[in-house]
């Protein structure tokens, strides 16, 4: 594909730290290769700012191949930008045109406080996982042979699809209620679908949902924006499955 270069204007949220007041700042950036990824475009901006002895824009990123879940960014009003099924690091500048103005904001959610500029604190996800997102098996290597319990391929495939969640938080950021139900539903589903996870399924879903509520995430009103914006295509079915699991668990608990 032929490489072209475009000139763009960027409107970026700048905020010194969690307590500071933030604002949108404007930048112009020329000669952006359309083969660059969105984050490489931001690298280019930062290089420009550093050369002007100005402070670069802080943003989260790491693997840059769409799997670590570290990158975020609300781009022109959409989580991970205009493309579907992709993370910001896998979004390329060929999706934009010469002369475009691009708005870049951090994830907006009460449960994800801003650390600086475009960086937010997603440790609430970790705490939900710590509350029950596991199977209680100690390291021994002597549990049982991996093939001792056959698992129907369809269950294994569904568990995998749920487990493909990268924990980026786009679901929360896209939700008008700031709900984390897609994230929690995916984890609950992965384990609920596997025989190894069934033993403590009840405690798991109760504990994870309790922690989710404590973290200040909103509730689900079935809008489905999370599923649309999820870079890994995690299905709403997982929320339904979690609700079922939760109802059963709550009924049994009483």
């Amino acid at each position: 594909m032929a490489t072209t270069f475009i000139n763009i204007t960027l409107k970026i949220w700048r905020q010194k730290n969690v307590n500071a007041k933030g604002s949108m700042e404007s930048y112009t950036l020329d000669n952006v290769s359309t083969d660059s990824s969105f984050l490489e475009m931001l690298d280019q901006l930062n290089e420009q700012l550093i050369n002007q002895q100005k402070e670069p824009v802080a943003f989260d990123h790491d693997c840059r191949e769409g799997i670590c879940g570290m990158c975020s960014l609300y781009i022109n009003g959409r989580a991970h930008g205009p493309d579907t099924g992709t993370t910001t690091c896998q979004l390329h500048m060929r999706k934009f045109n010469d002369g475009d103005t691009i708005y870049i904001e951090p994830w907006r959610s009460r449960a994800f406080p801003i650390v600086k500029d475009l960086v937010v604190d997603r440790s609430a996800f970790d705490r939900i996982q710590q509350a029950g997102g596991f199977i209680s098996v100690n390291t021994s290597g002597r549990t049982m042979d991996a093939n001792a319990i056959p698992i129907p391929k369809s269950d294994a495939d569904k568990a995998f699809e749920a487990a493909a969640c990268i924990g980026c938080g786009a679901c929360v950021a896209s939700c008008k209620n700031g709900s984390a139900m897609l994230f929690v539903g995916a984890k609950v589903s992965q384990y609920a679908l596997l025989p190894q996870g069934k033993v403590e399924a009840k405690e798991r879903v109760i504990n994870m949902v309790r922690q989710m509520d404590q973290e200040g995430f909103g509730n689900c009103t079935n809008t489905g924006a999370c599923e649309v914006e999820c870079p890994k295509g995690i299905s709403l079915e997982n929320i339904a499955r979690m609700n079922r699991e939760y109802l059963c668990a709550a009924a049994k608990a009483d």
Partner: protein
Amino acid sequence: MSKLDSKIPEGPLADKWTNHKNNMKLVAPNNRSKIDVIVVGTGLAGGAAAASLGEMGYNVKAFCFQDSPRRAHSIAAQGGINAAKNYQNDGDSTYRLFYDTIKGGDYRSREANVYRLAEVSVNIIDQCVAQGVPFAREYGGLLDNRSFGGTQVQRTFYAAGQTGQQLLLGAYSALSRQIGLGRVKMYHRHEMLDLVVVDGKARGIIARNLITGAIERHSAHAVIIASGGYGNVYFLSTNAMGSNVSAAWKVHKRGALFANPSFVQIHPTCIPVHGTNQSKLTLMSESLRNSGRIWVPKKKEDAKAIREGKLKPTELSEDERDYFLERRYPAFGNLVPRDVASRAAKERCDGGYGIEANDTQEGVYLDFETEIRTKGRQAAFAQGDHNPSESKIKELGKKWIEEKYGNLFKMYEKITDENPYETPMKIYPAVHYTMGGVWVDYNLQSTIEGCFVAGEANFSDHGANRLGASALMQGLADGYFVLPYTVSDYLANEIRTGKISTESPEFDEAENRVKETIDRFLNNKGKKSVDYFHKRLGLIMWNKVGMGRSKAGLNDAIKEIGVLREEFYKDVFVPGDAHELNPELDKAMRVADLIELGQLMAVDALNRNESCGGHFREEYQDSEGETLRDDKNYKYAAAWAYAEGDATKAKLHKEELDYEFIKIAARNYK
């Protein structure tokens, strides 16, 4: 420094680990809560170790620089994990996995460590399935396997093209459980900036809270470094942007030897470089070589026409294509080990047959057309259609490919804007993994007492070339099944030590060193960004310490890196201050270490007057371009002691590698 003692247990190879475990000292459960252990890095090795040690009852403190332990770069591993389960009944065994790994490493790894790795590989799969890791399964409900390079069996377990993610999330779930129970204290967005050594023993670390900038002292009875590899010394690599050598390098600076730094894996199937603003390279999993065939045009004119856009690869007939791996290595074909495949691609591109339309012309095709036809035909037959049309074959074949490699094909299309179902993928080798690392003995202990090093950060298991799907295996083997034993053995002598104070001259000194470095960078009145220097370092490394190395080139590299280092300290500009989130400061400190490491890599490559595995010295090759090893003079691991600021003064310690159980031979994949 004393002679290197690898502490390999006595006895027959197959009994060493069992006997060793039986003779190790233990720490009684009631004593474990009196003992602190620090784990730096939360990938497969670190995450697994922290979880396992927490379960045992030690007080564990785990550190990662990312915003969550789930982000560690193990997550990006695509293809799979090896284990000698022999579920496919194709003659696999512990011995065969051991043998393949030693041979794949070109006879530069330690027999006893590799045998143990193969031995515990089966436990890893059992453990992961018990944790709920959703591996790919067959219709009968049992686990599926595929093939990887350098082997003739199917022993690779996988979860689509996201095996690393699923294994890491498994380890992360175990770690999360321990954090929730209060047995592991997690410090995310923290970077280790120094190791504290007291009376010759590792007793803690200095870490920086990356959000507040606070410098923290953390003490422990043992320190485990599991901070990954150093591929980012090349700037462009398949590593994550944050991957760095600093934790391992600080340990080296405090006295641990660093072994075989020049052993770097250049992975054959990555998406070629697109331009100067590129920040990283993307891997296309080796699993694709199960189905894809690698080729370039037979005629240079055709390659030129393709580069100029006048010819499409699909317009070339079978006999106008050179399937160079199948031609040169008929026994293994497209599934030769990575170093062999990478060099063969370089050889073709250097010869003018490259197909990428950029300055370097570096690119070859990875073509799925044959597989689409074969699998499409099979699928049609399975549906009862014994005379399928061309279009039906293609349609069914593409569907098969999508099921196996869908996410990889999608990723390729996102990055290149080309549809790999219709036109072959363009690929070229890229830096991927580093076999070298901190020297460790059989117990994974470095030359500093109480400082253990695991996973990619150590040097022990892969020799001069790692086989595909073995990094995940090693990370989890070290973390789940080796360190819990060997660290306990060490800690058995610490039960009377008591809490280690952070108020000591050693902690003061280490903290001051860290603060001085930070002040130096922030007060430097330079003009150029950290990336400017990092990119320059990367170019020197790629051109002179990359896939082909020569005496003259290496000597140049050593000098150029020395000059670069001086310029870096004189002219780097680091904005912001020390008491806030400051990614440029983090980068500056990492690049400072990478520059020193890069020079040592060149020194190591220059010292090794032979070609082996990923280390290819142009002077040492046979008439067909294959590596020429020199077992008489270089059958050792080269372990270097730190020399302040000038790697040419680094002192070499040799660990002779004795092959007691394997007959050492020239590597042959023909």
